[in-house]
């Protein structure tokens, strides 16, 4: 959409209050959803919970294709459909709810930088492990991704997704990395987050922000998802303050 149209739409959005029947769509929880999508979905759910906005979670096999940008999760609010955490945060801000209002400009820039770090490192590592590691792809990712479909469509769609992710890894230069290097990158990312968190309950002041929602979404999902081996979870567990951050965020509110 053009800039003028987007500005117009967000003005319209701001005018309406948050409806009772807002819904969040994600792939099927039991059989289909993968680690990366589950992490993104949990991040959005946590963010909405922190803002105090009620939302129903609806699981659909075709959630990825329903989304306007092709990525899950997405929310259906009134007449609007918004996907991914970044645009959702903007949309919520237009409605008048924001978690990062109390931050000054320096802190806001820092928050954005850390969110980019999580997206570029942690999320990409998750995608790499799921689709570029042959063992995980064969045992977990392809069977789960294609479970709602019948033969031969299930194989076609699973391989199509795998090629797409591998092409993306090629484009950003990750295809040359080995699994060990990827685990190292995850470790470094966790170290940066751990250093920023220190002993505070949240990353900034005493109030949670969207960065907290994002980090919680990813770390909690990594800790609680069963992969082919436990190395990813071990990397996170080695930072105790991150562990207690997850525990604390899970039980609060």
């Amino acid at each position, binding site marked *: 959409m053009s800039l003028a149209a987007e500005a117009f739409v967000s003005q319209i959005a701001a005018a309406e209050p948050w409806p009772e029947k807002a819904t969040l769509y994600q792939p099927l929880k039991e059989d289909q959803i993968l680690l990366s999508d589950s992490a993104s979905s949990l991040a959005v759910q946590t963010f909405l919970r922190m803002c105090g906005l009620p939302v129903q979670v609806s699981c659909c096999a*075709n959630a990825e294709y329903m989304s*306007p940008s092709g990525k899950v999760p997405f929310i259906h609010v009134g007449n609007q459909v918004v996907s991914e955490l970044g645009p959702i945060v903007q949309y919520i801000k237009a409605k008048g709810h924001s978690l990062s209002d109390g931050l000054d400009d320096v802190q806001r820039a820092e928050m954005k930088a850390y969110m980019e770090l999580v997206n570029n490192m942690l999320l990409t590592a998750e995608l790499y492990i799921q689709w570029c590691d042959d063992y995980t792809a064969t045992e977990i990712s392809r069977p789960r991704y294609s479970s709602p479909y019948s033969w031969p469509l299930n194989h076609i769609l699973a391989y199509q997704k795998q090629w797409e992710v591998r092409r993306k890894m090629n484009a950003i230069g990750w295809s040359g990395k080995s699994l060990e290097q990827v685990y190292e990158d995850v470790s470094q990312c966790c170290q940066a987050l751990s250093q920023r968190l220190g002993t505070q309950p949240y990353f900034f002041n005493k109030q949670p922000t969207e960065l907290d929602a994002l980090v919680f979404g990813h770390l909690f999902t990594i800790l609680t998802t069963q992969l082919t081996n436990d190395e990813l979870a071990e990397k996170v567990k080695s930072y105790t303050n991150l562990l207690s951050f997850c525990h604390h965020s899970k039980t609060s509110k």
Partner: protein
Amino acid sequence: MGTVHARSLDPLPMQGPELGVQADDMDLGEPEQEEKQEVLENKDVVVQHVHIDGLGRTKEDILTYEVADVFRARNLIDVMKKSHEARQKLLRLGIFRHVEVVIDTAEGVDALPNGLDVTFEVKELRRMTGSYNTMVGNNEGSMVLGLKLPNVFGRAEKLTFQFSYGTKETSYGLSFFKPQPGHFERNFSINLYKVTGQFPWSSLRETDRGVSTEFSFPIWRTNHTLKWEGVWRELGCLARTASFFVREESGHSLKSSLSHTMVIDTRNSTILPRKGALLKINQELAGYTGGDVSFLKEDFEIQLNKTLFWDSVLSTSLWGGMLLPLGDKPSSIADRFYLGGPTSVRGFSMYSIGPQSEGDYLGGEAYWAGGLHLYTPLPFRPGRGGFGELFRTHFFLNAGNLCNLNYGEGPRAHLSKLAECIRWSYGAGIVLRLGNIARLELNYCIPMGVQSGDRICDGVQFGAGIRFL
């Protein structure tokens, strides 16, 4: 009709479409003509040999069936008639450019005095023909390449390939057709295709990749077709403003279905017939041979035509259909029926009748539509006998209804639902016939019975297509 040559060394003059007689024979024959005529018609002949000249890659065994009847002729008129029929049969195989018939007296050691030899001189079609077009449409340009290989292996098999490469979409189709030797109406074909379609009335985009095989065979006066089809369907939203109902249908699905069609067609022409009737019944069962979608679909088409006084034709038609989803999943938007438009109930916008959400039409699970037409030649008959014959004026009355059915209620509730809130329209216009395949219409329509949510096109409406209500 073609040309039939009859030559003879016998000095008797022969009667026929073209005579090749020698001058002195004419004089001889004249006074005895009356007598000779009778002899000719009762004269017994035996067809001893039938030759087919000009074959290249065509195998002879399929041709023997087509010309077998010629041997049964008993007199000359019969020979000419049966040769003509055999020529038509050879042409309908679709492997010859033209066929000529030559009838001659028998020659050779075993020639009988009343024996005849019939020779079919044929010219085969080229092994491969190609075509290349460019098309420009709605914001899209494309390049279309076509290849046709008639008579690939020598028994009237046909292979066609079409490929379209456009700025937005690519599509292709590959088709192989094989008739049974001796029974051309029994045939089977295999198709492989990818087609994309954009449906702005539903804000829907559909891409189908599929394979299908079909068998056709006649039983008595009816024509039956059995088909298995496997399609990978991909649905998507055409615009960001698509309604959520349409958005929910986006994604991939696999349809594997068996279908059966029965057709009885006694009309004299497919476009603007003057007499005859058409009955077509089609059923499709999906889901029991694999795939994600499961339904039973029935639809029928009836058309009756009768010529009235002064060259005018009265035509009535009735269409109907029903979709019954099997299992617990609801029906998909790609399987439902649509109603309205210049080719169905005139006076309404294209497929813009029935259930809709935010301006996107979702189609319905049951429908019926009927039409009553009176076709007359153009007033004052301009261009009579030539160009003017392609045009007709017509006065029409169309009606129809489309709805979703709640299968918890009984059939009585369904019928009453289809009977209430009927949309109908009437008007007049001009019809132009394009070959034997398509027609163009320009009508002035007055829609009535419009329900809230329908989109109408009252006033002048233009339509082009191959199948009209």
